[in-house]
């Protein structure tokens, strides 16, 4: 690699010959984002009997630098939807603004009675469908929003809803979901607790919160782009969204670090 970012990712002149400008635009093909810049790591979520728990840490990394340490990656949309963002933070902010515009527009058609408003409010499924369209459109323009998103909340039947959409517009739904490193490190733990929809019906809120906290700890131990401060939200039937943005990982144990040899400042 050289020091001319403009040429990165393009066919090399010394291998393929100079670009024929008669063929496309004079300055070569147009490029969009090739990689995220400031990033958030995993988001994890699990369904329980009457709702969903979601968590993400409060770090935004600039490469390997822990650049911003109080970043809120869980966003409440309304009384029954919370979104969790992994990936590029500026793209997340763009989506956040897009959603607040949507939310304002939704309020315009509100009706006289409060109960009617609850019925017509966008639910988690509506929002997931919408985000999937936005993400897929952008990837089809070769200009993706570099995020992995978890949508949690209640659907039209007031049942727990959990689904994901990523930068490619891929959608997926399961009783437990995790993005980024969490897909490798937390998902197996979550699946052990809630293997299927039948297990969701047995799951209590306390247990769900417990297993999420456990996963956040594992992620902090093993994911180098994580931090021990995190946010957690619970969306539950007939309750307001509970969103706590200053959770601290408790009862950490670094005793194992003693035994690790071979790098760091230690003398072997």
């Amino acid at each position, binding site marked *: 690699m050289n020091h001319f970012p403009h040429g990165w990712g393009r066919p090399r002149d010394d291998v393929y010959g100079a670009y024929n400008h008669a063929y496309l635009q004079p300055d070569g093909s147009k490029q969009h984002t090739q990689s995220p810049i400031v990033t958030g790591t995993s988001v994890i979520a699990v369904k329980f009997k009457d709702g969903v728990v979601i968590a993400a840490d409060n770090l935004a990394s600039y490469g390997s630098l822990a650049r911003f340490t109080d*970043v809120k990656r869980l966003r409440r949309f309304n009384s029954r939807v919370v979104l969790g963002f992994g990936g590029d933070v500026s793209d997340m902010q*763009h989506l956040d*603004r897009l959603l607040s515009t949507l939310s304002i527009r939704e309020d*315009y058609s509100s009706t006289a009675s409060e109960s009617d408003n609850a019925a017509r409010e966008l639910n988690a499924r509506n929002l997931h469908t919408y985000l999937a369209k936005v993400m897929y459109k952008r990837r089809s323009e070769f200009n993706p929003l570099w995020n992995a998103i978890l949508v949690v909340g209640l659907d039209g039947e007031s049942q727990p809803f959990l689904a994901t959409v990523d930068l490619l517009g891929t959608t997926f739904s399961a009783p437990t979901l995790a993005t980024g490193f969490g897909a490798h490190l937390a998902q197996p733990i979550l699946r052990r607790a809630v293997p299927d929809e039948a297990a969701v019906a047995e799951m209590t809120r306390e247990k769900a919160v417990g297993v999420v906290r456990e996963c956040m700890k594992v992620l902090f131990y093993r994911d180098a782009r994580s931090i021990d401060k995190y946010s957690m939200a619970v969306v539950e039937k007939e309750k307001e969204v509970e969103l706590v943005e200053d959770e601290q990982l408790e009862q950490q144990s670094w005793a194992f670090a003693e035994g690790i040899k071979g790098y760091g400042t230690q003398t072997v």
Partner: protein
Amino acid sequence: MTSIGTGYDLSNSVFSPDGRNFQVEYAVKAVENGGTAIGIRCKDGVVLALEKLIHSRLLKKDANKRIATVDRKVGVVSAGLLPDGRHFVSRARDEAAQWRSIYKSPIPTSSLADRMGGYVQAYTLYSSVRPFGVTAIVGGWDSEAELGVDGQVGSGPKVGAGGKREGAKSGGPYLYMIEPSGLYWGYYGAATGKGRQAAKAELEKLNLADGEISLEQGVKEAARIIYVAHEDSKDKEFELEMTWVSSLEGPTKGHHQEVPKALREEAERLAKKSLEPEDEEEEARVEGGDRMEE
């Protein structure tokens, strides 16, 4: 109107020899036939109220709301042609959304009034359009708190340059009225529509410029004034529609909302009571128009 029929009133954007734009004046006539709308600027918020004439028993009760919200903290009520009022609101919402996309924060009420004044004025400039047949009252609360930027994810640095001035205050209640000509002023109390004369007389008695009146008082006065203004067209039934927007500490937490039913009904009860001993006031009658005007 002396120059009617001389041909200068047949097209928009044309001046008569004495410097008038008749089509704009005719648009004002459409407003003067509509149900009365008022706005009161109180010390801790703004109240908007509307006399909604009910011309058919088949209409669904308490539906068909006419006072609209723009962005979250501004209310718009208008008198005149209903569909023009909707057009006005729709444009105001677009302006508010566009403002957000540029500045990442809600549009100040004054800027919204300014932009809408400009928009309405543009409809007096061309012969290919007609002026708006509405006068709109725009009331809002500009947040007194320090607002984050839309999409903000953290609190930013705790030390260093922040550009903040110690003790600086901003925000508060704002009220504007925009006429078909595009002209607009800021008001302590604004009234338009059929009963505007009676309503204005009542508003003037409130000494609103002193800035003493509270939002709750404002609600009661607004209801009473609409009832007073309705005296002229007593034969017609009407619904009172009222909205308000308060400070962040107030009842609406900075949002523009409908006045709660209980409070509205209490205000209506007091309004009716205050009217009982009085004799009806004399006002010039304006003839009714078609169904487009309420």
